[in-house]
């Protein structure tokens, strides 16, 4: 695979980035495309098999404290190591399976969420080395707030909620996703970088 790589010393203060591909926005090699699909399937198996079911049973699908966390974790991993369009592929694969498996009533809105979310991950991770835990926190704030915002009209329309309630439910999802994903994404990204399985 002849992918041009580079370092980010000038951008991130003399610190080597976590991923070799962090300077790039796009990565079109076969490995990136396949990894995008595989991570989408992994996300679906973890979320649709366990977490979305628990979330939906507890909250009726109005907010997703657990599934939001793993969704953010794997979206960040995909965007960070495999860039675009792998980030989109991961998200849209998950959205497709969420619709088929009926893991949540608002799964069709994931198609929109997952188109926006990886773009923010890829752009923000270009200016951070992603070697510290707080880099993940900084990355996740805009990604979650902007990326998950299409869920507000979706929950409003599907559940016949008030706008205020739909907004509050979304903030709860955002907070839970932020807490879970900051920890999980940091630990898993470090493990992937150490194992060099994404190089």
């Amino acid at each position: 695979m002849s992918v041009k790589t580079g370092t980010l010393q000038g951008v991130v203060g003399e610190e080597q980035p976590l991923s070799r591909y962090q300077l790039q926005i796009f990565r079109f090699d076969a490995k990136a495309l396949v990894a995008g699909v595989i991570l989408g399937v992994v996300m679906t198996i973890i979320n649709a098999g366990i977490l979305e079911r628990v979330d939906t049973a507890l909250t009726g699908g109005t907010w997703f404290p657990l599934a939001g966390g793993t969704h953010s974790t794997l979206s960040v991993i995909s965007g960070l190591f495999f860039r675009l369009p792998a980030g989109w592929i991961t998200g849209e694969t998950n959205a497709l399976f969420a619709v088929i498996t009926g893991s949540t009533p608002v799964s069709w809105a994931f198609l929109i969420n997952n188109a926006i979310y990886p773009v923010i991950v890829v752009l923000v991770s270009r200016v951070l080395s992603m070697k510290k835990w707080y880099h993940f926190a900084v990355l996740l704030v805009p990604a979650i707030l902007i990326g998950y915002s299409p869920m507000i009209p979706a929950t409003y329309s599907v559940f016949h909620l008030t706008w205020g309630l739909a907004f509050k439910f979304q903030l709860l999802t955002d907070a839970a996703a932020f807490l879970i994903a900051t920890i999980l994404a940091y630990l898993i990204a470090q493990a992937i970088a150490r194992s060099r399985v994404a190089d």
Partner: protein
Amino acid sequence: MPVLTTYAYRNSFVFRLDPRVKVAWLGVMLLLSITTSRPALLAAYLLLILATAAVAGVPFIHLWPTARAMLSVAVVIVFIQLFLHPGPHPLLQVGGIRLYREGFPIGVEVALRIYCIVLASLLTFIWMDPTALTLLLLKTGLNYRYAMLVSLSLRTFPLLERELGKIYDSQQARGMELRGTLRKLVRLLPVMMPFVLRALRRANEIAVSMELRGFGYRRQRTWQRSIALASWDRIVLTGLTVVIVAYAGLRVTQPGWFV
């Protein structure tokens, strides 16, 4: 319990239809379900979907895991609507929470609509051959590098599900208690970490083998199979078009029937 019921060929009329017809059927069912609010009609659509499954030869037991999982969702949805739609007829008061009868029809409507959407989508993928789906995407003009990814995801789904099962078994063999949903939630990281790493190693292997077979070498590639509309496909497509035109006509002239 497997998350997804995957494609398995059955010798039936529906399975032999062109993938475009199957997608058109899904489109019609989604349109009807989304634009109808009357619970009785939504229940009729649901019966129609189940009847189509029976005609296709898909046993109800294949749909049951999803239908059962959706039952708890439906109960919560109805409960939320009872709480969110106050009216003159209170049903029950528990502490500070008061439930109203006015929310019941709305809850039933939302629950039935979700059942229709989910079961129609699930059925479409049960009777859609992954290769046919790839060929369908190619017909839309999508590059084969991306068209192949959908079928790749459908094919790797059961493999990765088995892999997760093996990881659960391995961790349990090391003394980690993972029986029950709560324990699985608490011990998510020791399962998720090896699962992601093994999945990425598998992605590596798949990508290398695809490149060795010349994936992406040329802009175009050839296929052993092709899809073409047969006479039965045209008849079913015409039938679906008639249904949509009739529905649109009734929706305009008799809107009260659907809300």
